[in-house]
């Protein structure tokens, strides 16, 4: 019955094996990376799908296995894995995207010198991400959480010869560290306050059931906010979103895998995994909802004016992650996870499509593209499916998940409902702009020599376009199957005609306005830039958040660093130098006694004798 579920621990070990093999091979074999990476991730994918198939049976129960890892005094740390419907779904999503990215990279990274290293990193990342998903307690989740952060750092800075890539990798690492510190504090607080210091999710679930009262509300809120800080860092929520757009310096398949589908969704997954803590604290839930809603709109407006295709998609990712976080904050676990599920497909599809375009035209500036639709038919079609899904046009997957979130907002928080609608409008607008500028119109400066990508790159596009189009049907307003499966109890079909109509209306309106501005050009596209250049500039620079951080955080810290360098150089270094100088001058002084002059030695002996005699004689006169 649950044979595959019991073997779930094998899933992360497969990519780990690939990583070890590739590391052992080194740079020697160029084809080995693609072969091993793809084969092992395919095996992981098959196993994950088998697990999901088992979980689909109605009487499937959560399975967990753990053994004692560390014993310290009366505290025992158990480590193991847990398979629930949520983790099974995440397993399938991660392994599917990982496998397709592995295949895709065979074409995209073909001419890269360090392709084997690249595949090693990707496999290591897949291992860490799967480990994170399967973890049955917060501590091992935290370990894998840091591991995916390291892999993200390695892969963003993969082309470390580029100064921008190096800076982006550092930025990604440091900014997410802020969130990680919050998560660590949250875990320590939990450790401190939990009965028996338990950190596994099952116990957390039973302690935070809303009535046990083992932990006071204040502490619960504090713990929830600390954990949320971790999610803010990893999932690129305001104000820690700044690393995600810069992380686009990494190879594009990495952006699809790590910075669109899996790692950035880890924050959402974390909240979902510790959802009981959040549900115990109304204040924390509200914070989560407002941060998510604000980020969704905030990032969507920035995406409106960006010129770099990957940065548009990155800000879009930030915005969509904001949607998920908002859904969780509004109490709709299903909405958040459902959007995570569909977003993984269509955003990975969009990034891989963008990679295919960049591969063809060798630029990322959408102003230099144009008219690519006729030259790259397959890319254009699959990209269109992804764009429609992202814009929330029925019947594509994104519509259903976004609609679920908007319905949740409509029912509980009108303000966030309108924020969500505004963000949805911006989303449809910037995707239309992106699509028209890239694929339609006159060929741009860079699109002359464009050609369709090789098969290894187009096949994953098609493979992702299918779920991007239809994955939404697992949960529709009249069919709450996904939610029931996820939560384990029957969820009522929810449906609010007003929310659906509003959701469709803003998306279509966004599409239409986009078409008017960029397609038919009946509204001048430079109007905004000309009429209010400050607004355009504000959006283009992302509300100057980077500049603000540079002035408020980076500069003072650098200044403090320079002061500390001076302290180090003159005070600490001075002490060290003084100690050295004292020793060597003492040595020089002693060396001068050893001058080889018999007479000096003799004099020293006489002086010593005189002192000895004086001491012996002088003692008599002492009392």
């Amino acid at each position, binding site marked *: 019955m649950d044979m595959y579920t019991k073997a779930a621990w094998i899933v992360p070990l497969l990519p780990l094996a690939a990583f070890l093999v590739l590391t052992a091979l080194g740079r020697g074999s160029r084809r080995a990376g693609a072969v091993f990476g793809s084969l092992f991730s395919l095996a992981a994918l098959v196993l994950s799908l088998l697990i999901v198939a088992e979980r689909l049976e109605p009487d499937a129960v959560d399975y967990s296995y753990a053994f004692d890892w560390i014993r310290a005094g009366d505290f025992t740390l158990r480590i193991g894995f847990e398979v629930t419907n949520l983790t099974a779904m995440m397993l399938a999503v991660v392994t599917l995207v990982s496998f397709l990215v592995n295949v895709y990279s065979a074409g995209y990274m073909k001419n890269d010198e360090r392709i084997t290293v690249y595949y090693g990193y990707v496999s290591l990342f897949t291992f860490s991400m799967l480990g994170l998903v399967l973890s049955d307690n917060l501590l091992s989740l935290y370990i894998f959480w840091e591991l995916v952060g390291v892999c993200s750092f390695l892969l963003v800075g993969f082309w470390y010869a580029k100064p921008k890539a190096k800076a982006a990798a550092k930025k990604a690492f440091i900014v997410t560290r802020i969130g990680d510190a919050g998560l660590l504090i949250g875990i320590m607080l939990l450790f401190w306050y939990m009965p028996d210091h338990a950190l596994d999710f099952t116990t957390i679930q039973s302690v935070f059931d809303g009535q046990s009262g083992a932990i006071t509300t204040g502490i619960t809120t504090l713990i929830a906010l600390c954990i949320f800080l971790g999610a803010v860092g990893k999932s690129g929520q305001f104000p820690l979103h700044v690393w995600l757009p810069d992380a686009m310096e990494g190879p594009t398949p990495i952006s699809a895998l790590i910075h669109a589908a899996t790692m950035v969704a880890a924050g959402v997954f974390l909240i979902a995994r510790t959802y009981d803590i959040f549900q115990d604290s109304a204040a924390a839930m509200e914070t989560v909802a407002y941060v998510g809603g604000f980020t969704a709109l905030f990032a969507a407006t920035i995406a409106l004016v960006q010129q770099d295709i990957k940065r548009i998609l990155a800000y879009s990712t930030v915005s969509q992650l904001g949607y998920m976080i908002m859904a969780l904050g509004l109490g709709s676990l299903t909405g958040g996870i459902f959007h995570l599920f569909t977003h993984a497909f269509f955003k990975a599809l969009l990034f891989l499509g963008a990679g295919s375009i960049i591969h063809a035209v060798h630029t990322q500036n959408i102003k230099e593209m144009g008219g690519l639709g006729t030259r790259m038919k397959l890319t254009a079609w699959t990209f269109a499916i992804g764009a429609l899904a992202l814009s929330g046009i029925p019947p594509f997957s994104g519509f259903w998940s976004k609609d679920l979130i908007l319905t949740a907002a409509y029912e509980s928080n009108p303000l966030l409902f309108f924020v969500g609608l505004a963000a949805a409008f911006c989303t449809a607008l910037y995707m239309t702009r992106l699509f028209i500028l890239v694929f339609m119109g006159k060929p741009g400066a860079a699109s002359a020599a464009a050609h369709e990508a090789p098969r290894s790159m187009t096949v994953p596009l098609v493979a992702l376009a299918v779920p991007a189009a239809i994955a939404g049907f697992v949960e529709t307003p009249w069919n709450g199957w996904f939610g029931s499966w996820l939560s384990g109890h029957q969820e009522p079909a929810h449906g609010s005609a007003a929310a659906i109509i509003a959701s469709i209306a803003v998306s279509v309106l966004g599409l239409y306005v986009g078409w008017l501005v960029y397609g038919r050009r009946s509204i001048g596209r430079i109007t905004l830039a000309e009429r209010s250049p400050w607004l355009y500039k504000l959006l283009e620079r992302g509300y100057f958040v980077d500049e603000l951080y540079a002035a408020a955080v980076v500069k003072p810290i650098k200044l403090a660093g320079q002061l500390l360098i001076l302290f180090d150089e003159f005070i600490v270094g001075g002490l060290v130098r003084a100690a050295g100088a004292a020793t060597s001058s003492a040595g020089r002084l002693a060396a001068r006694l050893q001058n080889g002059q*018999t007479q000096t030695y003799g004099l020293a002996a006489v002086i010593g004798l005189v002192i000895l005699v004086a001491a012996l004689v002088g003692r008599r006169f002492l009392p």
Partner: protein
Amino acid sequence: MLPSYLTLAAILFCIGLYGALVKRNAVIVLLSLELMLNAVNLNLVAFSKYGVVPSLTGQIFSLFTITVAAAEAAIGVAILIALFRLRGTVKIDEFDEMRR
């Protein structure tokens, strides 16, 4: 009587010591050494005549000392000549082989 002999011997010894430690010429240093030995001899003789237990041992002992001093002077001068042949100088501050 004894203190005046001892004082003379002490003065002689100090002059010899001063010369042995300060003079740069090795011949003078050897002479100073002889001076110190003679001061000792003076002490021996003085004690043998005016000491608490007068006896001849001190005088005989001083004869021994004179003999040994003569041998020492002969060897010292021989070394000095050898050094002078080797180094072309008898300045004692240039003989600093022990330093190397």
